[in-house]
């Protein structure tokens, strides 16, 4: 089901993602990478394109790019070369960007059923700020250029047009981001621009295999905006088709504030990048040692992890997916299972992604390292709950105290005698007492208002100090009230 598209139309979406690599230095010179430093504090003759300077590629950037390629299941080209992509703009100091063209570093990959067309290495542009009206180009009296970012290593990832809805684009983008994040090769921070996403969007009659005219949506700075932008563009294209108009190929800028799509002013001439092999660089031929090294450094990546959690550990789909994209929580899960061999993965995962995650949110989502809860302690808690040694309510209370004060749940259960009422005769006596003391609700229940049983359950729980199992209380209450 796609967003508002008529049933006879289908969305065809491809993504182009630029990932800034988190190396120490730039792609082709020794300047440090920086974010937010004062303008032009990280430059040298090379990244300012002074006369006579030459690029030398950063070995680590290439290693990182190979890791990304392998993580996306790509084939790494045995020999690839750099090209010059020529265009004049003040953010492009050489007036050519060193990129890859006909033989990219990587191609033919796949992530979560979306094929990767190619992934290649290139360098980032400088940052431009337009003086005057709200930073927009039109009406400004000039532009300021800051070369700190110029030459930052980038990997550009281009998918095939395999995505069929805006929400799928968002979800897939998030999976890609997590995959790259877990490689540790990029900060993947969209607001800071270390991950940038463009979308190619078209529509076609459902069932057709032809590609319609696509438009390009530029530089959305979150996946939420990506989804909104694509939704808006699909609506616009469907509207054009419905009124008998044609979609024209153009580049659009999405304004998340208004939800509007603005065409970027078309250039006076079509782009003619005049690619040529970069004569200042020699070919890149990753040898088996480089590939082996990259392969060894790959962690288990989200897609594989989610599959293993589902298939091997029996964890339901939703928590499995969540854990796969939150590496820290997944690490916690593995440690919990190691600490308590009898703890069912399904139970551990539910505690982790349910109550524990809710507690973390309450605390403002701190790093796990800042939370005084060890995996082993959470595992003990989950085990006690799984074995019904404590009630769910008790377990939740204990978890709050663990997160706040770092208490040891096992010790506290003993000290405070919080063990679940396992003796059902004791529970039956309490139920009898509660029913007697609350004739009103009891009658209501018997008169058919089953919801009224809640008040009685509450009273029983209060009487037991929360040590009773909710399900068990319910069962005995219904028995006592003759509801069978």
């Amino acid at each position, binding site marked *: 089901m796609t967003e508002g598209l008529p049933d006879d139309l289908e969305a065809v979406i491809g993504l182009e993602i630029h990932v800034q690599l988190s190396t120490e230095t730039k792609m082709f010179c*020794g300047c440090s990478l920086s974010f937010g430093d004062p303008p*032009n504090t990280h*430059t040298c003759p090379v990244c300012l394109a002074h006369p006579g300077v030459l690029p030398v590629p950063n070995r680590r950037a290439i290693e990182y790019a190979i890791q990304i390629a392998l993580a996306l299941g790509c084939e790494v080209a045995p020999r690839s070369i750099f090209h010059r992509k020529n265009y004049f703009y003040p953010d492009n100091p050489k007036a050519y960007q060193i990129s890859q063209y006909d033989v990219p570093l990587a191609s033919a990959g796949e992530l979560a059923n979306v094929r990767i067309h190619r992934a290649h290495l290139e360098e980032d542009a400088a940052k431009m700020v337009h003086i005057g009206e709200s930073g927009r180009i039109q009406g400004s009296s*000039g532009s300021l250029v800051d070369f700190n970012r110029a030459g930052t290593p980038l990997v550009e990832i281009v998918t095939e047009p395999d995505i069929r809805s805006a929400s799928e684009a968002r979800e897939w983008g998030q999976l890609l981001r997590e995959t790259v994040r877990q490689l540790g090769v990029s900060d993947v921070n969209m607001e800071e621009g270390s991950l940038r996403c463009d979308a190619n969007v078209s529509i076609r009659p459902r069932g057709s295999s032809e590609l319609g005219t696509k438009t390009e949506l530029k530089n959305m700075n979150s996946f939420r905006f990506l989804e909104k932008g694509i939704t808006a563009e699909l609506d616009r294209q469907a509207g054009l088709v419905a009124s008998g108009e044609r979609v024209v190929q153009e580049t659009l800028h999405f304004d998340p504030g208004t939800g509007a799509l603005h065409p970027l002013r078309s*250039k006076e001439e079509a782009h003619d990048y005049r690619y040529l092999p970069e004569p200042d660089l020699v070919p890149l031929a990753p040898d088996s040692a480089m590939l082996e090294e990259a392969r060894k450094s790959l962690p288990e990546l989200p897609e594989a992890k989610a599959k293993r959690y589902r298939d091997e550990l029996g964890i339901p789909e939703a928590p499995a997916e969540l854990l796969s994209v939150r590496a820290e929580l997944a690490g916690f899960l593995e440690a919990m299972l190691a600490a308590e061999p009898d703890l069912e993965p399904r139970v551990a995962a539910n505690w982790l992604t349910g109550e524990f995650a809710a507690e973390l949110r309450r605390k403002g989502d701190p790093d796990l390292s800042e939370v005084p809860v060890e995996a082993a302690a959470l595992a003990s808690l989950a085990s006690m709950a799984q074995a019904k040694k404590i009630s769910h309510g008790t377990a939740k209370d204990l978890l709050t105290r663990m997160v706040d004060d770092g208490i040891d749940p096992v010790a506290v259960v003993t000290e405070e005698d919080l063990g679940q009422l396992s003796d059902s005769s004791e529970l039956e006596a309490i139920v009898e007492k509660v029913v007697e003391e609350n004739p009103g609700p009891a009658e209501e229940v018997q008169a058919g208002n089953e919801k009224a049983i809640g008040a009685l359950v509450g009273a029983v729980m209060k009487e037991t100090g929360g040590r009773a199992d909710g399900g068990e209380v319910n069962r005995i209450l219904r028995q006592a009230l003759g509801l069978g």
Partner: protein
Amino acid sequence: MIDRDQVVHVARLARLELGEDEVGALAEELSSILDHVDRLLAVDTDGVEPTTHVVPLENVLRDDVPGEELTPEQALAPAPSVEDGAFLVPSPKTEG
């Protein structure tokens, strides 16, 4: 043959302002040079690999180690126009 329109188009790509007389002269000169260059088209180059590099090197890389940087003052010193620690350029009326 390369005509005046092509000269104007190529000059635009190359961001070169040309006078009227230059356009005419270049159309002639470039056409004449290309006549000579066109001899290449008669060569049988089937199956011949292009030569991009004459040095048979591969994987010449540098370690990811910071090198010497310019101070902002040094970086900006040769610039024709500067503002707020940045290079100042006229506004683009069109996107690059």
